[in-house]
């Protein structure tokens, strides 16, 4: 990190201190990266990513003012601080805000992830070749694979965060994610298969999952789906695979645990701390400190490091996820869950690595226990209305299960229910905890996250199907 930026950060902090704000923080962000997209054997995108800027935020009489600037000169930074101050002050002058005192112990931390193999150790040409090889691999599986797409994204995010309480923290986090998509076609039917892998660190991430195997997996899924039927509509007992169970716990439950949503009256979990919200076999955690996972966040966007939060322990709600403001309002410890996309956004309460902890069943036992029902695999997407607790998530594949065996394959199924009903209806959790990288959107910001779960068995899930 160049000293110039540290100087600018100090200028901003001094400006806020002179303005006598109740609290302020200054965040310098520098992003450098590369994005490759190959479609049908040709490079669709080769994008060199480079940006840097300052996020400036202050609290005056309960109101937050936020500005950001990419014009990195002392005078522009001072002007931006003054603008943020005036914005915050204008709230106090026009409304009777409930004041909040931000409290946190000053933190001085540095986390510079030193990958085993830095991102630049692999040339752009080698990265391109890897993507091209993945495409060739998909197409070599069958001439029914008609179209393919491979994306490779790497980003190194460096941040320097200081605040008026004396915190100063720096971090550098490199991350990689690759994805393969295959389109199979036969007799006028088109089906899609997708597989991805990613993590924080360097090129060694690409060694932990063979990119060619990942590509084959995507192609196999697309081919398999060509024979899939429309799913039947109705209510079923269900086994969720780790991917869709992970998306379920992130979407259907995790968002309702974000304390900013709780405080704005939009969560079914308001007032539920200490109460039973799920079956005793369910334990849910969010842990930003798990090295290597895609949601690894050693220091959050407010400079706070989180050591992991047990959200639900044996079915009882133990904690929400917090940023500095929500933890101050609720008078609890910070959890390191304040995250912002780039320098143009305000940190929101966000998940990091969120997962259902492993249980003591093995997967075979789960299937033996399900005489008739469905087995949902893979996830396309999911969402929840946290106020109602009503969720929907899309699995990429769904099998009808008879006598404990997955039989007929179905496609494009939506699963739905009420979050707390489903958590209460979980009757078995396996021990095969598996993680999956992804991105989470909230308001207009996207951040990298990990979802995780073992196989879980749930009673009474609503399946939306055409048959």
């Amino acid at each position, binding site marked *: 990190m160049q000293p110039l930026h540290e100087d600018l950060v100090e200028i901003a902090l001094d400006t806020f201190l002179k303005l006598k704000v109740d609290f302020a923080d200054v965040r310098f962000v520098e992003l450098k990266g590369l994005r490759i*997209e190959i*479609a049908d054997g*040709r*490079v669709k*995108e*080769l*994008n*060199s990513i*480079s*940006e*840097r*800027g300052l996020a400036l935020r202050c609290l005056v009489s*309960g*109101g*937050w*003012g936020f*500005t950001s600037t*990419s*014009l*990195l*000169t002392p005078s522009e930074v001072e002007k931006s601080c003054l603008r943020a101050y005036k*914005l*915050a002050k*204008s709230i106090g002058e*026009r*409304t009777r*805000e409930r004041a909040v005192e931000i409290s946190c112990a000053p933190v001085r931390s540095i986390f510079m992830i030193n990958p085993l193999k830095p991102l630049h150790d692999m040339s752009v040409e080698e990265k*391109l070749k890897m993507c*091209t090889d993945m495409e060739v691999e998909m197409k070599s599986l069958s001439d029914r694979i*008609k*179209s393919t797409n491979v994306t490779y994204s790497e980003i190194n995010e460096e941040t320097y965060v200081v605040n008026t309480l004396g915190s100063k923290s720096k971090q550098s986090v490199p991350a990689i994610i690759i994805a393969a998509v295959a*389109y199979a076609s036969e007799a006028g039917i*088109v*089906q*899609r298969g997708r597989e991805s892998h990613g993590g924080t660190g360097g090129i060694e991430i690409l060694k932990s999952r063979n990119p060619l195997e990942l590509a084959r997996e995507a192609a196999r899924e697309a081919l398999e789906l060509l024979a899939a039927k*429309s*799913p039947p*509509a*109705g209510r079923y007992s269900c086994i969720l695979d780790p991917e869709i169970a992970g998306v379920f716990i992130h979407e259907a439950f995790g968002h309702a645990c974000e304390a900013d949503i709780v405080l*704005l*009256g*939009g969560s*079914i979990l308001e007032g539920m701390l200490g109460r039973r919200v799920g079956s005793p076999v369910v334990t849910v955690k969010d842990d930003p400190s798990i090295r290597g996972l895609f949601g690894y966040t050693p220091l959050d966007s407010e400079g706070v490091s989180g050591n992991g939060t047990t959200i639900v322990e044996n079915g009882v709600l133990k904690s929400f996820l917090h940023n500095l403001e929500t933890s101050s309002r609720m008078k609890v410890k910070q959890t390191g869950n304040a995250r912002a996309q780039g320098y*143009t956004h*305000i940190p929101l309460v966000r998940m990091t690595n969120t997962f259902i902890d492993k249980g003591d069943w093995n997967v075979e036992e789960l299937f033996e226990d399900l005489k008739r029902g469905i087995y949902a695999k893979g996830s396309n*997407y999911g969402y929840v*209305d946290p*106020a109602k607790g*009503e969720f*929907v998530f*899309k699995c990429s594949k769904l099998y009808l299960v008879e006598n404990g065996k997955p039989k007929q394959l179905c*496609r*494009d199924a*939506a699963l*739905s*229910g009420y979050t707390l009903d489903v958590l209460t209806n979980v009757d078995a959790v396996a021990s095969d905890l598996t993680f999956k990288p992804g991105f989470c959107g909230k308001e207009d910001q996207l951040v990298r996250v990990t979802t995780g779960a073992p196989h879980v068995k749930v009673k009474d899930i*609503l*399946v939306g199907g*055409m*048959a």
Partner: protein
Amino acid sequence: MELLDICTKLTDRSLKLGADVSEAYGVDLNILKVELEKRNIKSVKMVHDVGVGVRAISKGSTGYSYATSLDIDIDGTAKKAVEAAKAGNPDPDFKDLPRPSSYTRPERTYDGRIASLTPEELIDLCISLAKQAELDKVYSINITVESLVFRRIIVNSNGVEGIEDGTLLYLIAYITAKEGVNLSSGYEGDVVRYLSDLDPERIVMRAAEEAVKGLNAKCYKTMKVPVIFAEKSLSAIIVEGVVKALNADLIQRGRSYLSRRLNANIGPDELTILSDGLIEGGPLTGKFDVEGAPRQRHVLIEHGVVKGLLHNSYTAGKAGVESTGNATRSGGDLDFRGQVVIAPSNVVVEAGNWSLQEMIQEVDNGLLILDTHDIPNIATGDFSAMVTHGYIIEKGEVTLPIKQTLFAINLLDLARKIRAVGKERAKYFNLYSPPLLVLDVQVSSKA
């Protein structure tokens, strides 16, 4: 240095460094955003985001780079794009970037009133709207108002040069209602180019009323029924499901369920859909797309027959036709960071002859679906979704709101089963559409 100068210099420099053709897309964006959370103003955000995205093309291979701020390293940024272009493999399907052409000057796209809005005015607006939404049982009122004032600039080495100023104003209301332990929510929003085109009271009151009504929601049945799709649910069906499937890139690669259906009849005579980049005051109305091709009015489905596709310069060159002016960036027209992709501009569904009341009276037992947050599978056309807001229709009358109800239908089936097209068009973000009555939609619920 001015943004236009930066764009011109980047384009020239890319050519000198060895690009065959090059382009620079610059955006200067001022955002003012006020958030009211649970009745209190929470934050005011003011962001000035300025930057340029450069595309350099060598033997058809495209390299990108971008830089933020006005104080950018012209040489370094151009070099990155050119090096990336040279690292890629040749693409004979790339023909050319757009050539200069005259632009139609769109109406009502820049409002000085929006450009001069102060934080104080937006704070006062939020506070007064929140007061109006204080209905009985309303528990939490959350409102976001965001004004955007922008200049976008396109310059390419073929001589295209375009500058356009614009304004946008977003209003989003998310309101919850509570009765005992029962919570319900209402969501409404819109975006306009002129302040006078926004009806903030209507938006906020509808969100509040939906939230309160939702407290009495009940489950439905599992069966096939007629459904009236209205309001936001049409955005999922028409914009995300039908129009996005007419993206020429997806069609050319065989990734869309509408591949090989050009000139085929897929729906009733009453069904006509257009992408209209010139509609007065439309959210995506403009002089040019992000490549500098003129925005235009383009028929996609006419009397039930697929007539047109959405093109950018790449897909148009590949097909030997003109671009339809539908190039955008992955994050939208104001994103200089993202890659060039294809998307509809404003989507217009021509009005039919049925009033909503006549449609409702036509249904003996069915649903009025107002909203879903789901999106269809474009490869298969299958659409399986949750009804986030909807009502039961019994004996020709709208009765209780529903909960815990899913619907599923393939979009080709949906088009074939359109029984009636409404005559009253509603605007929802970039969609202008009347309601549609569709027969035999599979619905599943807990009751």
